[in-house]
């Protein structure tokens, strides 16, 4: 007799359980994400080289909206640190993280490929070229907005170039588009290398740090310029959600179900290009958020985009605000590059997800 008896098959519990559990899971997930966002944002505002008690952070916010329940910081320096430095940084982290999360979900849905992320169609490398140009040549025609503005323009232009190059006879196939992205990314990489080579030492340093990603020096005006774009992106993404579900059946099948596949893909790519270009133009390149967050959400609530997209928005925001909290406070007097941190945590985590999915669902071939 062998000791390794297989467990008895229980088809009843196996098939019936998830049906009742999923809606509950969705509610719990959103509750946890929102609560997490509020708590981590407040903690992030409170913690730093200059510590401010959490009650004073809350008090300061409530005071501004006219509720005098808790005391704001008595020290005017603390009040200024909160409103001029920490809050804009926290809000920018929320916006950038949210954009990256939503756009990751959009790209994966749009290409029907769980490995897609905004970088695939050249947004990040294109934006980097623009940023490097302005840094190396010292352009300042738009003042301090020159680098972000150029990054935005080249990011958008690169993505559209990928789309136009990949189209033939009015159609842009998934594989063609991804391979075109590889080609365009390579050219952008070469351009960045050349600019690094051509720049002086100060420019090189600046380029390296831009590519590492950072939210240091965030200002309200940054928040104000990207917030409307984030809002539009999120709303359009939600409107596209149901059609993206259909796209996972394949282009032809989606068309049979009434989806204008080409228009859907174009709208999705434009939304991603605009939103991600705007986000990375201030923060520099922050990888893995767009890749990991949608996977994590899918694992909890399934792949339906009507839940996946808003949950990725919140999840991306939470992840980046937490990463920024860590980046600022892991070492005294050092602001770690946030892009390095997300990649350091995201890489192994993504691999773990891959293994786990392969074990449980037969995985992707």
């Amino acid at each position, binding site marked *: 007799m062998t000791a390794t008896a297989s467990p008895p098959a229980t088809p009843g519990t196996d*098939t019936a359980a998830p049906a009742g559990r999923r809606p509950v899971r969705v509610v719990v997930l959103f509750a946890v994400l929102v609560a997490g966002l509020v708590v981590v944002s407040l903690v992030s505002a409170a913690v730093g080289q200059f510590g401010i008690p959490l009650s004073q952070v809350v008090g300061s916010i409530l005071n501004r909206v006219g509720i005098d329940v808790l005391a704001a910081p008595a020290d005017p320096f603390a009040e200024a640190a909160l409103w001029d430095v920490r809050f804009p940084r926290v809000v920018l982290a929320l916006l950038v993280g949210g954009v990256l999360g939503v756009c990751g979900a959009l790209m994966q849905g749009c290409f029907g490929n769980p490995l897609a992320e905004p970088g695939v169609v050249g947004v990040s490398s294109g934006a980097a070229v623009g940023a490097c140009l302005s840094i190396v040549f010292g352009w300042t025609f738009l003042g301090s907005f020159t680098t972000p503005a150029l990054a935005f323009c080249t990011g958008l232009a690169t993505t559209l170039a990928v789309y136009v190059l990949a189209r033939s006879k009015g159609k842009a196939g998934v594989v063609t588009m991804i391979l075109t992205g590889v080609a365009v990314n390579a050219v952008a990489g070469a351009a960045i290398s050349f600019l690094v080579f051509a720049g002086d030492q100060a420019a090189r340093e600046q380029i390296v740090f831009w590519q590492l990603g950072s939210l240091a020096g965030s200002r309200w005006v940054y928040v104000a310029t990207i917030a409307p774009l984030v809002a539009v992106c999120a709303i359009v993404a939600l409107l596209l959600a149901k059609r993206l579900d259909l796209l996972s059946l394949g282009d032809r099948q989606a068309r049979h179900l009434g989806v204008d596949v080409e228009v859907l893909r174009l709208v999705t790519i434009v939304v991603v290009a605009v939103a991600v270009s705007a986000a990375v133009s201030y923060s520099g390149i922050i990888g893995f958020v767009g890749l990991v967050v949608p996977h994590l959400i899918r694992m909890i609530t399934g792949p339906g985009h009507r839940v996946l997209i808003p949950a990725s928005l919140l999840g991306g925001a939470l992840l980046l605000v937490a990463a920024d909290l860590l980046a600022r406070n892991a070492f005294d007097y050092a602001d770690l590059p946030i892009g390095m941190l997300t990649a350091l945590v995201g890489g192994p985590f993504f691999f773990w997800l891959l293994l786990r999915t392969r074990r449980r669902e037969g995985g992707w071939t």
Partner: protein
Amino acid sequence: MRFLARAGTRVPGPPTAGDPLAEASAVVATAGGARLLDGVSLTVHAGEVLALVGPNGAGKSTLLGVLAGDTAPSSGRVTIHGRPADAWSTVDLARHRAVLPQHNPVSFPFTVRSVVEMGRAPWEGTPAEDDDERAVAAALADTGLTSFAERIHPTLSGGEQARTALARVLAQSTGLLLLDEPTAAMDLRHQEQVLALARARAETGAGVLVVLHDLGLAAAHADRVAVLSSGKLAAAGPPEEVCETELLSEVYQHPVEVISHPRTGKPIVLPYRE
């Protein structure tokens, strides 16, 4: 943005038996210099099951794609429900015809129920939306998938995935069904079930075009059989007329025997064996 706006909300009534639902006349289709279809004319009528048979590469899937409005022919005319195929909007067409392609992968781990529910997408925002739940439940029951409804698609066997795709197409509830080898991955029982479902849809007035490889299956269940050979229509008519030794031997380039089933009298086609 027109794309984001809802299309019209008219729900088409059931077709009247005998109406032409999809009509190809003198259709020529080319790809990479090869003539895949060479002057084919074929009509799918309301209330009939039309089986499309022929050897590999005869152009069966191409013809199905042309009749579905997927690919425009290089010459010839295609009408669906009386209107030229290229005059339809994508959504409106999805309310008039459903298509089951040969391969139906699903890129994310959706449940069987979610996949079948996607078949109802064209009806969003129309009065037919109220029928969603019933149509999905009926499609799951008809394909024997009710107990699989909460299973994750990638964990299903090939035959179960094929039935899921068929259930999605049935849930779409259109007057015209175009099925490309729906029985390919299925066992004997489910093959019979699929053809019985096609028959049941035809009886409610739908027109069903089904590509098959099993000539016996086609002869037993179809009202008419159309034989394609190298892009040309070799024959079309009732199974008893089309299942003819000489014709099929030539089309398949292999000697065949046609015998009559001792009980039902339906033709059975077998490759000639010593």
